[in-house]
């Protein structure tokens, strides 16, 4: 039974937010930091308090880096029980994650690669006015506390208000893992719900065993890890690429669909290989109901190297159920209207990937599915939309009689920042706030 009253709502529910703000914080004084957290705990939404029909107008989430847990005074024994990848942080794992070249942590913005990044306060709001109200409130709170500093912040607004779409125009939130114990019914094609231990510590995962837990259990139970990624989308370059590759609007749309594996409407190529089907794209009972090995083994509909076929290879990989992740976040920056040339303003997606093991879930996806040039024996390809591209990789579009290979794919995205956070349960937040972890000696996990 999931402990909804103790799990932060963030990975359990999707709120009807149209605006958001991420505040990246640094703890300068230990007592002030604990006081800040103590004042925040009651504002954090839980799985119980935030339902799908939440009447609230804002939803708050709090998470910490490993350095942040240390800054709060957590003892060294306990700190040592966190997994190596979390202790090191995303910036130190650049080679694993693939943040090289223009994506390198040295070029990140907002102090995200700094060891001074200790915490994040995530605010989801119904609208911009509510976000601004909450921001002022938090400004006053930080001034009052004195000792918690804001390293940077990022404001987010829906690129297409009222519609889940990112800046390239692709429909988002087309599918998501259904978690066992939430009562949600998986849509056709999604398979049985995923074990809760794949996302929350303290529950059995797909192996049938509970995942490794940092100690003490009070700190880790009902917690999750979050990989944060701020990914700039080069909309001008993307549209120019489509123009170069397609003479007509229809050809351009098909190329866009081949890169993603879905039409921009959300309709999957496996089910709509020749022509877009917008009604299919929004029909959650149908849009996820397909496979690859049985329905499109050679990728004639959905290229093997396309984005969705890499991020969820379905029945073409082993142990798919232990690689599932939950994504949360939104778009930032102004929308670039159609026909308007690139304006140089940063816009993109700022998202969190939630899981129980960063190395097994998030890092595996980035290292193998996204950035391994030889994924599925493709030889010289990376994810065409989110892979680390430098103009030297290709995308193969299978078709009869001869496949089409587009060489020298440009980078449509650049990672401008990232971090690993631990998202504790509510009891754990109180444990950190009252300083219990600073004095208690715990046994190291063997």
């Amino acid at each position, binding site marked *: 039974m999931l402990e909804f009253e103790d799990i932060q709502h963030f990975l359990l529910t999707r709120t009807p937010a149209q605006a958001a703000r991420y505040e990246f914080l640094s703890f300068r004084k230990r007592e002030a930091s604990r006081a800040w957290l103590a004042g925040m705990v009651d504002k954090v939404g839980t799985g119980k308090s935030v339902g799908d029909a939440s009447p609230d107008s804002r939803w708050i989430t709090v998470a910490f880096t490993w350095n942040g847990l240390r800054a709060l005074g957590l003892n060294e024994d306990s700190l040592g029980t966190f997994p190596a990848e979390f202790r090191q942080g995303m910036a130190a794992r650049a080679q694993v994650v693939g943040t090289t070249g223009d994506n390198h942590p040295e070029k990140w913005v907002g102090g995200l690669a700094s060891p001074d990044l200790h915490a994040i306060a995530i605010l989801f709001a119904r609208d911009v006015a509510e976000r601004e109200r909450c921001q002022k409130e938090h400004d006053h709170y930080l001034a009052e506390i004195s000792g918690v500093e804001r390293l940077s912040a990022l404001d987010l607004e829906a690129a297409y208000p009222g519609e889940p779409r990112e800046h390239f125009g692709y429909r988002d939130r087309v599918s998501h893992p259904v978690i066992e114990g939430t009562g949600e019914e998986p849509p056709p094609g999604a398979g049985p719900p995923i074990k809760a231990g794949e996302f929350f510590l303290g529950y059995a995962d797909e*192996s049938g065993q509970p995942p490794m837990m940092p100690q003490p259990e009070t700190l880790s139970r009902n917690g999750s890890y979050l990989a944060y990624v701020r990914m700039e989308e080069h909309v001008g370059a993307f549209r120019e690429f489509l123009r170069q590759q397609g003479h007509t609007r229809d050809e351009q749309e098909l190329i866009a669909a081949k890169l993603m594996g879905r039409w921009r409407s959300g309709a999957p190529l496996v089910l709509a290989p020749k022509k877009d089907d917008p009604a299919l794209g929004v029909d959650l009972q149908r849009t996820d109901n397909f496979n690859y090995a049985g329905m499109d083994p050679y990728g004639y509909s959905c290229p093997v190297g396309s984005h969705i076929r890499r991020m969820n290879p379905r029945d073409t990989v082993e*142990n798919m159920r*232990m690689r599932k992740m939950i994504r949360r976040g939104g778009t930032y920056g102004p929308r670039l209207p159609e026909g308007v040339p690139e304006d140089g303003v940063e816009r993109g997606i700022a998202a969190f990937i939630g899981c129980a093991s960063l190395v*097994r879930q998030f*890092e595996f996806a980035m*290292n193998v599915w996204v950035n391994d040039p030889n994924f599925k*024996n493709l030889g010289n390809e990376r994810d065409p939309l989110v892979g680390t591209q430098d103009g030297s990789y290709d995308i193969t579009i299978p078709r009869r009689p001869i496949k089409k290979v587009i060489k020298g794919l440009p980078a449509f995205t650049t990672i401008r920042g990232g971090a690993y956070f631990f998202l504790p349960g509510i009891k754990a937040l109180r444990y950190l706030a009252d300083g219990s972890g600073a004095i208690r000696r715990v046994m190291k996990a*063997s």
Partner: protein
Amino acid sequence: MATRPLPKESPTPQAVPTTKEDWTQPRALAIPKEGYFKVEQGRYGPVYPQTPANYGFSVIGKVKPGREQAIRDYGKTIEEAVKADPFVLGPLKLHYLRWVLFDVGSGLHFMYQGIFDTDFDKYVEDAVVLFNQTGVTSVFTNLEGWPEDWRTNVPAVINFFREHQCPSFLEYGEYPYVSADEVKKALKLKQSFSDMLDQMQ
């Protein structure tokens, strides 16, 4: 328009530049002591490079006293498992597997040597799941240093493999860098041509 006469004999194949993809040229590769040429960070530590003999590992561990027969018995277990489902080890992308027991005066040791097509670091969790399913893991429980909590502590299992891996310092491939899938595709193509010729009779 002048035509060139056909040569009487097949021409000697021209020298083809030896590239990583050139399966026609046998290749040997001497490997530094560390097992890699440059440090490339994988998820669980430095990544071992692909060689003309593709990827692989040679894990060597000391056998706990009195466990020799238990290990030998698992040879039969794996044989039966593959007989029941010939593709049971498919996810490992193996070419060959060799299990050896030996004693050179320092006690009985077990060597698990596998040659396969995928970077072990990339698919290591899949391998551990399969090891658990097929009983391969049970062989390792007979070795010294195997983590007691192997059922729940995958990182500790991976660490055991890394610590007991003895990297090669020379690897050779008669048809270098060719994957088992490519070999099977070539044989399937040959079979298809053979079937086609049968149909033409």
